[in-house]
């Protein structure tokens, strides 16, 4: 059964010389004649779809499947034969898939401790004394708080008023400290 299907691909009596001729232009990945052919800088022929899938499989280590030379999407050359009806660059047919976007979680449940995880460096002091408060807010990198609201929105104006109010509170407090 297996051999039936296999020979059905090329016809039952393939000519020896035509077969070797054709194999020159076979994709190195699917072993079929290359569709939307591209050639790497090291000279190896692939279907664009096959090569693209391989590059997506190992995004960190993109090497030519045949010779392990460095390879990239931008450094392959499309091949246009005379008989091909579609003269478009095959690389445009299958646009590179956008990378998944990964947002930081909004709320961090519980005490994060001294975690050196993915979210960046987070340092928190357990003492509420005055100088430490400054440090704590200075050293809180990338703590996952939501960004400011867009300018013009009601929340933005509200926050502007609040920020002015606290600025005045701080100024009065400092003057009181100096006078006392």
């Amino acid at each position, binding site marked *: *059964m*297996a*051999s039936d*299907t*296999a*020979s059905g*691909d090329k016809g039952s009596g393939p000519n020896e010389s035509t077969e070797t001729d054709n194999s020159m232009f076979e994709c*190195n*990945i*699917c*072993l*079929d004649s290359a569709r939307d052919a591209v050639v790497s800088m090291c000279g*190896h022929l692939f279907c664009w779809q*096959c090569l693209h*899938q*391989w590059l997506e*499989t190992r995004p960190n280590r993109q*090497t030519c*499947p*045949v010779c*392990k030379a460095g390879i990239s999407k931008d450094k392959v050359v499309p091949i246009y034969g005379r008989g091909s009806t579609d003269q478009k660059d095959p690389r445009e047919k299958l646009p590179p898939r956008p990378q998944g976007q990964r947002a930081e979680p909004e709320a961090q449940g519980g005490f994060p401790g001294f975690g050196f995880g993915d979210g960046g460096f987070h340092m928190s002091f357990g003492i509420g004394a005055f100088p430490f408060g400054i440090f704590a807010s200075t050293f809180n990198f990338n703590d996952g708080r939501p960004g400011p609201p867009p300018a013009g929105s009601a929340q933005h104006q509200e926050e502007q008023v609040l920020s002015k109010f606290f600025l005045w509170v701080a100024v009065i407090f400092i003057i009181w400290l100096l006078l006392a």
Partner: protein
Amino acid sequence: MASMEKRLHKELQALTKEPPRGVHVDQESISRNITEWLVHLDGAEGSLYNGEKFQLVFKFSQSYPFDSPQVMFVGNNIPVHPHVYSNGHICLSILTDDWSPALSVTSVCLSIVSMLSSCTEKKRPPDNAIYVKTCSKNPKKTRWYYHDDDV
């Protein structure tokens, strides 16, 4: 899925037509299931394994050839070799990290014959006992550490 089967048929056709020396595909096993191949391997002449016969099993996932096949020795004769565990698992980088879709069943078989042939002393890997007890059934699940390129 279709592309995987198409490629396997092409490989089978080539391997049946021009098999490398000492490599025979078990056609009967494949006619039952194209995703699992049994391959008979002969120890190369002039090597320590001359005259021995081994069986390899290839299991292909749906993402073959982008994903490497699962390859291991089976049967009652597992070669005694520093990179072959007594449960048939093979420590060979092209079967995991260094796999490339341009490799094939034929090239994997030749690599394994060549790996056997360059052996100078028949012995099991030093960690054989503990590995065989603790490993997964699938050799691809093992985090292989490739350190010895001599053999």
